[in-house]
């Protein structure tokens, strides 16, 4: 390929100013010296300029309206379920049968193995706090730092300048899995901690609420501490989607709502800026009344106020009126 051919191929890049300065300079030098390339360049430049005459077309307003009307709700956004091929199941089942059968056959070929009884020793379980702050002497830490631990908030200190030792402090995160029944106090506290402290921008908070809804709305699992944590989310979270989820979840655990939680619902009904949150708060209060709990007078007053408030959203007014008619038929 000649230099002129290469030059022509680079002309669109030259026009879109995508060439690096050195190549741009070389290209312009060549164009100035080569009459054929100069003609080509002028033609390219004119074509490029003419293309600029094609104006931007305005998007019709109806497209925006159609799009905003079609925004899916969170529940509609689901990961499609894919059925696993049957052949894979069969292969797995066959592998298990072979493994078990093979082990049994091997185990029964010779004499039975007899194990000598040995005394069992069980070490006492040391209590382990996940929030523990420990001071470790350097000699007890392996010099081989493996696993690339995530070390954060590093600070250097020298607690005693008179001795020869220095200190290095940091937070280190390791993956911890805590297992237990949903009703275990540690599990409840951990769940509460996640609900109330997870970074506001993190999807974990939303996922935590989904998990709480699936687990703690089961009969026997509802816990006042979880309900209180959801009440705090309802009060404090800045994202309407999260607040809606919190109110929905409370709706499913009426038996666990203590005074503070009920107060959070009343507060949401009174002043949450999003009408969908206010609607969900009404639903949760209705569910509470249906469960046999006598609603606090403040809740009934708030429902009455909302049902008759002229500047309130129509749906909220209707829902509040419906709730009142259900509470006092």
């Amino acid at each position, binding site marked *: 390929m000649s230099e002129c051919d290469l030059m022509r*191929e680079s002309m669109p890049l030259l026009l879109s100013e995508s060439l690096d300065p050195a190549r741009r300079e070389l290209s312009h030098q060549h164009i100035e010296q080569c009459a054929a390339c100069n003609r080509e360049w002028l033609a390219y430049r004119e074509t490029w300029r003419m293309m600029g005459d094609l104006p931007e*077309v305005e998007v019709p307003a109806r497209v925006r309206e159609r799009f905003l009307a079609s925004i899916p709700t969170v529940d509609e*956004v689901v990961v499609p379920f894919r059925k696993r091929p049957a052949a894979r199941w069969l292969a797995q089942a066959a592998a298990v049968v072979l493994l078990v059968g093979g082990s049994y056959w091997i185990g029964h070929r010779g004499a039975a193995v007899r194990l000598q009884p040995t005394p069992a020793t069980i070490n006492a379980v040391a209590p382990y706090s996940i929030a523990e702050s420990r001071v470790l002497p350097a000699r007890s830490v392996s010099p081989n730092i493996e696993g690339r631990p995530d070390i954060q908030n590093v600070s250097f200190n020298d607690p005693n300048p008179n001795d020869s030792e220095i200190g290095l402090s940091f937070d280190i995160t390791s993956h911890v899995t805590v297992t237990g029944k949903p009703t275990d106090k540690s599990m409840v506290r951990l769940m509460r901690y996640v609900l109330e402290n997870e970074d506001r*921008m993190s999807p974990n908070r939303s996922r935590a609420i989904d998990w709480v809804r699936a687990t703690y709305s089961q009969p026997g699992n509802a816990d006042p501490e979880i309900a209180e944590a959801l009440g705090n989310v309802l009060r404090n979270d800045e994202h309407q989607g999260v607040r809606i989820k919190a109110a929905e979840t409370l709706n499913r655990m009426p038996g666990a709502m203590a005074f503070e939680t009920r107060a959070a619902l009343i507060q949401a009904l009174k002043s949450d800026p999003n009408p969908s949150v206010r*609607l969900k708060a009404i639903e949760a209060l209705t569910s509470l009344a249906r469960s046999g709990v006598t609603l606090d007078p403040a809740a009934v007053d708030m429902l009455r106020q909302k049902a008759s408030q002229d500047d309130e959203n129509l749906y909220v007014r209707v829902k509040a009126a419906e709730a009142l008619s259900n509470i006092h038929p």
Partner: protein
Amino acid sequence: MKPPRRLLAWAVRNLSKMFPSKSTEKREMKHLSDQELMRLVQAGDFSPASEIYDRYSSRIYNFAYRFLRNSEAAEDATQEVFVKMLKHANQFHGDAKLSTWLFSITANWCRDYLRKADNRAKDSEDVLVTLPAPSEFSPDRTLEQRENQLRIQKALTALTPEQREAILLSRYQGLSYAEIAQISGCSEGAVKTRVFRAMETLKKALAGERGGDRCLNAI
């Protein structure tokens, strides 16, 4: 007094549609980057949808319109691209540019559209019928511009879809060859060739219409 049952049923049916945008929220959204808005969407909060739409709908619509030469299809493309953006938000990686991802979805949609034989048959009918008349120029200049627009649109139809996609993204959207390669699913070298060939075809078509080198030499 009990509200009418029909009104109640209607209200309950439409609960999920009641997410009115607050002006304060809207103002705050304007300050967020594309990546921050997408993180909210990925967390299940669709309130940034209108802000993202306002940022990119014009570019998406114009690309689809010039590519398909059909305003109705461009409208459908624009709407579906943003719906897909919400539904598949988790496929967006924060290290990529949102514009590149959106153009990938748009280009896929347009290619699928052109693959359908029915669409290919009617795709050249809707040529710039909605172009605004530029009022700041003299009548002669306006007429010349109109003629140029029709010539360019006609010349663009002479390109292969791959060449058209590459030149539209390069000339009108200002994307780099690396970004175009990502959108088109090909190498940067292939993009370079497509743009070069597209420019060759357009140059010949436009110069021919204007009387060839006579015009060009007069610049």
